[in-house]
């Protein structure tokens, strides 16, 4: 059937058709929908794991047991899963195993712009890179064949524009892969030195055979051009920009397999053109290879290592006509993302700002706590870093810091990699105050369940980890729960736990205001008789509140009646509109 599919949905379709049986992933933009879409096929067991390392090891276990498996993650997720990655390369697989990693050039929703292709090279694994949804499906299926033929997991590299673009896909039926019963093989699967030493040459030999495969595989395709003045070596979304700009004017070597690279094919292509031009987003990965094999080429001296490319950028760099349009003479105010109206994080960040706390933050919607006017976050690094870093911060500065510094981390991020940092605080004893922002969902990536929510990926009841019990079991005596809509209670809790001469955890608990089951109060309105225009309510950065004609104004279409503004107004100007929302 011919249909429009999101790149990520097409990959999920490929998994389905290839007979994938087990999927375990952690959500991360732009990779999340692969797993969400896979979960719609009843034939595939799908789950959200607590983090990418667990997901990859789960997928490996399923492969070992003889079922085709998959795990998906964003680029920084692969850092978390790098430990199993490098050694699964040694053990190899039983049934096929595919690992999708989605890069985010342009950082639409990420903390860095790293290039995942380096992982393929350093972990010595093959990597396929589709350039549209149809290839997303086809390459996912091809990846299983390669995985089983060469006895290794296969990396499937996505990027934001391929993952989140819909294009035409022709789907097929699900096939059942050949049975691969589990067999005990200590020499292959127990990676202690004596065995690993014997596996390493196998890995090197495998890469040699894969490089040979790359020479003849139709994954790598030379397309002729009308002029041979330049030849373009490219892949993924850059291939699409090149074709958009050049059409069939210049020859193109389009790589669907970006590691290992087909040396002979690239040499022959380079020899057929006057100048080899490498067009690739982020790092000069293909370019480095070309230079290593002694080919002259044009690459990063011309094309930027930063951000996303586009057709105009490629046209400009190739000296071709660039489209342009008109804009207004005056500046257009930016529209940065903001915490939603009714977001439970708002009350907490207001309190931390008011108390002049030093706030070490983490990855999630609440990273927006760093944005004006809340401006209440001073550090965000990676998943879980708030909890580990506050311990180091407090050990470095002592009591003075312990009485004013807090770590803030979401429920899902805490499950992902906050727990080990908390263990360090409990074990090595800093009087740190950790605040878990429990909004009962993984918010930023679009509402995925996690081990604290009590539901699985399909929305069915599942195991539920109790945060209070967990913290107490780790040795925290001071564990308390507050409602961040209640500013007085929240302030009291933060003050008391900062003052305490021992480690403590505050759980700031209130479900995400966007969750469907959350019942909202009617919107508030401003009594303009009472409002004096002091703008106290503007300190919380609520998108529903603005100043109109010198008085506060509530946008009734946005307001969910959370009442945080009401507590800031000394004049009682915010009033309920009554009735039901």
């Amino acid at each position, binding site marked *: 059937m*011919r*249909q*429009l599919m*999101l790149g990520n949905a097409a990959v999920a379709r490929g998994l389905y058709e290839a007979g994938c049986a087990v999927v375990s992933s952690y959500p991360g*933009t*732009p990779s*999340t*929908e692969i797993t969400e879409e896979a979960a719609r096929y009843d034939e595939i067991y799908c789950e959200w794991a607590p983090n990418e390392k667990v997901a990859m090891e789960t997928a490996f276990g399923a492969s070992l047991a003889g079922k085709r498996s998959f795990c998906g993650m964003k680029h920084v997720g692969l850092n978390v899963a790098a430990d199993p990655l490098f050694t699964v390369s040694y053990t190899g697989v039983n049934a096929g195993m595919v690992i999708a990693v989605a890069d985010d050039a342009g950082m*639409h*929703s990420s903390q860095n712009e790293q290039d995942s292709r380096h992982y393929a090279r350093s972990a010595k694994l093959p990597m396929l890179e589709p350039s*549209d949804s149809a290839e997303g499906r086809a390459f996912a299926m091809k990846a299983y064949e390669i995985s089983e033929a060469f006895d290794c997991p296969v990396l499937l590299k996505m990027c934001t*524009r*391929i993952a*989140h*673009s*819909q*294009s*035409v896909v022709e789907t097929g039926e699900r096939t059942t892969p050949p049975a691969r019963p589990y067999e005990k093989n200590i020499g292959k699967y127990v990676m202690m030195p004596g065995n690993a030493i014997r596996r390493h040459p196998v890995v090197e030999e495998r890469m040699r055979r894969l490089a040979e495969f790359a020479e003849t595989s139709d994954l790598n395709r030379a397309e002729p051009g009308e002029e041979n003045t330049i030849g373009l070596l490219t892949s993924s*979304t850059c291939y*699409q*920009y090149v*074709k*958009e700009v050049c059409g069939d004017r210049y020859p193109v070597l389009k790589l669907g397999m970006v590691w290992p690279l087909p040396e002979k094919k690239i040499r022959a292509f380079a020899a057929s053109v006057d100048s080899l031009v490498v067009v690739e987003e982020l790092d000069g990965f293909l370019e480095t290879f070309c230079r290593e094999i002694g080919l002259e080429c044009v690459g990063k001296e011309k094309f930027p290592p930063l951000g996303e490319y*586009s*057709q*105009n950028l490629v046209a400009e760099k190739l000296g071709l006509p660039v*489209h*342009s*349009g*008109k*804009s*207004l003479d*005056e*500046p*257009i*105010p*930016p*529209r*940065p*993302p*903001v*915490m*939603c109206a009714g977001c439970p994080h708002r009350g907490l960040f207001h309190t931390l700002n008011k108390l002049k706390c030093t706030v070490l933050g983490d990855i999630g*919607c609440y990273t*927006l706590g760093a*944005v*004006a*006017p809340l401006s209440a976050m001073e550090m965000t690094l990676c998943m879980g870093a708030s909890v580990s870093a506050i311990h180091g911060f407090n050990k470095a500065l002592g009591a003075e810091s312990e009485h004013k510094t807090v770590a803030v981390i979401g429920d899902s991020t805490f499950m992902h990699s906050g727990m080990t940092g908390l263990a360090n605080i409990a074990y090595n004893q800093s009087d740190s105050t950790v605040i878990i922002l429990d909004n009962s969902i993984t918010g*930023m*990536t*679009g509402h995925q369940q996690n081990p604290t929510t009590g539901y699985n990926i399909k929305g069915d009841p599942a195991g539920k980890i109790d945060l209070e019990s967990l913290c107490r079991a780790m040795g925290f005596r001071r564990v308390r729960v507050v409602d961040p809509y209640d500013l007085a209670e929240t302030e009291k809790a933060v003050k008391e736990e900062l003052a305490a001469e021992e480690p403590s955890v505050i759980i700031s608990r209130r479900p995400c205001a966007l969750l469907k089951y959350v019942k909202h109060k009617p919107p508030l309105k401003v009594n303009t008789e009472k409002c004096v225009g002091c703008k106290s309510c*503007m300190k919380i*950065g609520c*998108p529903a*509140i*603005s*100043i109109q004609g010198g008085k506060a104004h509530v946008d009734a*279409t946005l307001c969910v009646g959370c009442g945080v503004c009401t507590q800031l107004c000394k004049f009682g100007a915010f009033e309920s509109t009554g009735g039901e929302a």
Partner: protein
Amino acid sequence: METKNIMIVGVGGQGSLLASKLLGHLLLGQGYDVKVSEVHGMSQRGGSVVTYVRYGDCVNSPVIDRGEADFIVSFELLEAARWLSYLKPDGQIVTSTQRIDPMPVITGAAAYPESLVEKMRATGAKVDALDCLALAEQAGSSKAVNIVLMGRLSHYFDLPAEAWEQSLEAMVPAKFLELNRRAFALGKNA
């Protein structure tokens, strides 16, 4: 056929994904190659969002660049102005006149520009501006602004009404179909 470009711009949460799905379904049904590029994740949280819809015989790039859009469909005036440079010299803007203040305007750090429709027209852009929020409310829900805009856009396309109707049926949940039919008609005939 040369590739045609439609940009859908607005504020995160306004329903642009449904509009792009509708267009994707419609254009695929007409036999075109189609690409639709969306934005997910952090930028969705009340930020400026853009969706690219491209169709033709063979579509390569999933995105639309400066000076390439045949249409900019906008849920909000400031967003139409923000993306103006993406319009082709003879391109058409279809915009709701709704105004949503971004945080820098709310906090007073920036001002919301006045007379945006006139200023955009002064650059030579063709601007079709209408109060889609009022029409959506008239249809029965403020959330139907996206379909009001699609109705208005249909005005510029030489496609049979049944084709739009079929895509609407395919993309909108049955219980909201009547409401969205009204919204579409109100936009089309405005």
